[in-house]
């Protein structure tokens, strides 16, 4: 993959990226941009749509934050037949989620330009706001100060998929000797780089090494986390213990970028049982915990989305009961994805495994 140089003297990394985004609007390559931006009342970056580069003062494209699933919001913005072209600046896991949604026709890749970066990871919203109050321009400071790594969510600290392989334009930060680079991951990306007249450059020697060092560290944490989690899940008691604090608020479900059902069965009357049944169950089992069907909820969700889980960690972030939902789902998802030999969001042409009609698996 060719690397392009984008730095201008005196610019910070985020102002370089912002200038690039403005350029995409200015040269009519895109009609709109969806990117992290602060607002007058809050430093917490939200997915924000711009159509005019003049309004993009509060944009923070490299902020270590994903306050809400950007992929889900992006899918609301870019859907239907190709219309306006929208640049989506998303973290790598969100790019993968967006591509999964595209496979389900819940958004359209044709009208999207996917821009992503070597991911700095993200902080929980509260932690981000607190740190942003202390540190000027957190997006700049974050990648270079290793002490910040400690503040990452558990999910990000154990994420080894932080390179945006499937994005059209990939902003390179890690091992770049303080500069920025851009790589085109697709033909669309190449075309845009050409239209922006970007000059090519050599990939710094340090980069590959820096990336693999970080990936190695992350992978180690991931392996430890997954094996610990798997050992807690491996019996029906263990499963229930893991979700025992769940209050069935379904926050994890609505925060999930790949929970694709338009109408979730858990929001219907299917699990609203007649009182007699609840009493009968209580008599038979000794008691009935309400709200009911908590195990059913989590197992069903796993059975539906384990193949598509991109490991973004939003479910953990929104859980009021502090259940490490993402640890559970990522652990299960890794096994499911290896069973199907599938990586969600790797390539839009890779079909959803359960929709592949393929003979040959034994009936067992």
């Amino acid at each position: 993959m060719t690397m392009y140089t984008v730095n201008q003297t005196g610019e910070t990394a985020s102002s370089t990226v912002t200038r690039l985004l403005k350029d995409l609007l200015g040269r009519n390559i895109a009609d709109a941009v969806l990117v992290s931006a602060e607002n007058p009342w809050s430093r917490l970056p939200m997915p924000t749509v711009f159509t005019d580069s003049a309004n993009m003062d509060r944009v923070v494209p490299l902020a270590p934050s994903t306050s809400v699933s950007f992929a889900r919001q992006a899918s609301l913005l870019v859907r239907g037949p190709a219309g306006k072209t929208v640049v989506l600046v998303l973290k790598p896991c969100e790019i993968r989620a967006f591509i999964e949604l595209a496979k389900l026709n819940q958004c359209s890749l044709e009208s999207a330009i996917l821009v992503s970066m070597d991911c700095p990871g993200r902080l929980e919203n509260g932690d981000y706001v607190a740190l942003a109050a202390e540190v000027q321009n957190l997006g700049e400071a974050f990648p270079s100060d290793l002490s910040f790594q400690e503040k990452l969510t558990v999910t990000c600290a154990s994420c080894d998929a932080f390179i945006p392989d499937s994005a059209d334009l990939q902003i390179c930060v890690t091992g770049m000797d303080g500069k920025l680079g851009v790589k085109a991951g697709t033909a669309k990306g190449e075309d845009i780089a050409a239209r922006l007249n970007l000059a090519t450059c050599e990939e710094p020697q340090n980069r590959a090494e820096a990336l693999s060092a970080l990936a190695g560290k992350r992978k180690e944490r991931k392996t430890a986390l997954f094996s610990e989690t798997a050992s807690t899940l491996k019996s029906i008691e263990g499963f229930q213990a893991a979700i025992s604090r769940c209050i069935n608020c379904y926050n994890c479900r609505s925060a999930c970028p790949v929970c694709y059902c338009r109408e979730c069965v858990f929001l219907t009357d299917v699990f609203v049982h007649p009182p007699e049944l609840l009493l009968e169950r209580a008599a038979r089992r000794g008691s009935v915990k309400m709200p009911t069907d908590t195990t059913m909820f989590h197992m069903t969700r796993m059975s539906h989305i384990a193949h598509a889980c991109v490991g973004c960690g939003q479910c953990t972030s929104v859980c009021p009961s502090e259940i490490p939902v993402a640890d559970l789902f990522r652990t299960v998802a890794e096994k499911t994805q290896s069973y199907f030999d599938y990586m969600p969001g790797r390539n839009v042409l890779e079909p959803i495994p359960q929709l592949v009609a393929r003979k040959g698996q034994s009936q067992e």
Partner: protein
Amino acid sequence: MSETETQIPSYKPRIVALVCNWCTYTAADLAGTSRLSYPAEIRMVRLMCTGMIDQKYILKAFLDGADGVFIGGCHPGDCHYLDGNLKAERRIGGTRNLIEQFGFYPERLKLQWIGASEGPEFQHHMTEFVERIVAMGPSQVRDRMIL
């Protein structure tokens, strides 16, 4: 081994069979009219195609106390909806992989192609599955479900 198994000689297994209308259900009918008896423990649910089996049907059966879940569909190539059965095969494979992670015995979930004219095969597979489940003993999942 997390799903404790205890042998109860006189126990009657609870078995849910999710069967396709066009093949396995017809085969069951045929078995009936041919006076081929098959185990009475089976609670048969007729579906229009195995392709409509959502993972949650299987999970619900197990969590609510099924000792075994049998799925019967058309032979590959014979599905009335072209390839519902092959998609079902993938989905069931994924579900088996999932429940295994939680200590369920995957042998309790079986998929079998049984064509409409295969009355004797229906009898054979049902008997065999019931024997398998009886040998395994009752599933302890329902009794251990609290949440």
